[in-house]
């Protein structure tokens, strides 16, 4: 194995924890990033000679702290921290065994760092961009590519976002149980958003989008590693894995979306499906189902069916019903109606859809789903109207192609 690539992999894997620990020590994200940067450079030299240490994270935190302390001394900024505290830090780092990073502390540190990125004043996209920059360490041009903006623009947005987040960094606390749960929820949502940006987004090229999915999965793993008993975190990881397992089957070579029942299931990746299913089972046996777990369970049922016909729609229908009770959104109701269609037929599904008419008037999939049901019930004129309405709602190139194909197929009837 190439030494260099292996060391880079270790550095990337350790980054969130190291940045988080350094941010707590110095209450400054910029310093923490500089510290990590310098520690990484030293690591590449030292590890090359001595081998990779057993605890790369501990090694990097220790060296990073020393680097920052040296820098603060040089800058004569001791007053900012206080002499005594600086000395304490120095003693602490010398004495610290590499294993001695307090796990309980570290998990709050990582959570806090991610939580800083979800600052409520930031737009969802800026939150993601900031997390990609600070936590993941993705270079700015790559982030810009992911969100299809100019690197210069992204740079400016990141600077602003960073300033916001820095305010939080100054007030380091040990969260109460409620705060911790609240943070976990906000952070989970952000990680799922990051995943969705990669998964359902049509922005940016396919390669960078797949990278976003992978980073989201890594963050979900990291969170779960730190909070192994949170069933919703287990659900989050499972959901991402199960959806991403279908990545190679869900688009044609020209970028057209292939619906689930038409996908070549042999292209689904078996390993993440196995892992995802196990996680769903593990989460559900805890008896505290939540939205992530239910969505993951639905995804697992789809993945378990070796053909579309074998899908356990009855169970999926029940899960959507439960999901709707927990998160009563029209989109969930729409998905529920699709399951109702499979279980109770087009009539029942259409009746359910009619109730959503107000809420989803401007939602493309509402109209395309409705059109499909109308075709099945032989109401061609209505179906045509529904497809037309969907086409009016600015479908993407791929969606428009699909809709037009459907429309022309009923014209021939």
């Amino acid at each position: 194995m190439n030494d260099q690539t292996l060391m880079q992999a270790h550095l990337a894997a350790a980054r969130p924890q190291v940045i988080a620990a350094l941010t707590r020590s110095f209450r400054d994200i910029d310093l923490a990033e500089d510290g990590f940067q310098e520690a990484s450079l030293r690591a590449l030299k030292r590890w090359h000679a001595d081998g990779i240490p057993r605890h790369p994270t501990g090694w990097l935190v220790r060296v990073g702290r020393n680097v920052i302390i040296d820098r603060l001394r040089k800058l004569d900024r001791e007053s900012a921290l206080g002499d005594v505290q600086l000395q304490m830090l120095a003693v602490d780092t010398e004495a610290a065994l590499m294993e001695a990073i307090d796990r309980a502390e570290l998990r709050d540190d990582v959570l806090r760092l991610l939580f800083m990125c979800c600052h409520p004043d930031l737009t969802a996209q800026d939150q993601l961009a900031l997390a990609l920059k600070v936590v993941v360490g993705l270079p700015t041009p790559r982030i810009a590519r992911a969100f299809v903006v100019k690197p210069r623009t992204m740079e400016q947005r990141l600077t602003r976002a960073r300033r916001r987040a820095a305010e939080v960094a100054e007030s380091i606390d040990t969260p109460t149980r409620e705060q911790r749960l609240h943070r976990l929820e906000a952070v989970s949502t952000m990680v799922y958003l990051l995943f969705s940006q990669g998964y359902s987004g049509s922005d940016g090229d396919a390669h960078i989008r797949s990278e976003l999915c992978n980073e989201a999965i890594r963050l979900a793993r990291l969170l779960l590693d730190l909070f192994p008993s949170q069933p919703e975190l287990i659900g989050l990881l499972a959901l991402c894995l199960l959806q991403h397992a279908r990545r190679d089957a869900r688009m044609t070579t020209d970028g057209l979306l292939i619906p689930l029942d038409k996908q070549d299931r042999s292209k689904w990746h078996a390993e993440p499906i196995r892992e995802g299913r196990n996680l769903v089972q593990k989460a559900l046996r805890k008896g505290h189902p939540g939205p992530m777990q239910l969505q993951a369970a639905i995804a697992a049922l789809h993945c378990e069916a070796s053909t579309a016909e074998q899908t356990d729609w009855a169970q999926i229908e029940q899960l959507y019903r439960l999901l709707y009770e927990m998160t009563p959104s029209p989109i969930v109701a729409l998905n529920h109606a699709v399951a109702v269609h499979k279980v109770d037929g087009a009539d029942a599904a259409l009746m359910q859809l009619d109730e959503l008419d107000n809420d989803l008037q401007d939602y493309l999939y509402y109209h395309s789903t409705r059109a499909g049901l109308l075709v099945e019930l032989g109401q061609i004129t209505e179906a045509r109207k529904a497809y037309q309405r969907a086409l009016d709602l600015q479908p993407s190139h791929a969606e428009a192609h699909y809709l037009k194909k459907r429309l022309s197929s009923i014209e021939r009837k």
Partner: protein
Amino acid sequence: MYYSILIYAQEGVWERLTEQEQEAALEQHRQLQAECEKEQTLGPVVRLGATSGAVTVRQRSGKPMTLDGPFAETKEHLLGIYLVKCSSIDEAIAAAKKLPQGIACYEVRPVMWSNADQ
């Protein structure tokens, strides 16, 4: 007798490697497996899932209870197991040295009993 080669590594590093790098590492595994297969010394080979999917069953107040996560809270996790028929620990060590180094470390331990023996 069988020797076990226990594969320990830090979780999260494997995923950071590119597909080509992963493929190169897997190729080394396949080579060892093919070699042992030829010598008819290969026992069961197992690759374990991530510890996030693990639960631990442990007795609490007289009852087996399940706890989340792996048994040991360590940085290096057990990721896989080989059983290889060897006449000495040296042979087993030689086999372990053929596996991709740096990415994992390999604990070589004698097997006292195995159903592969039966």
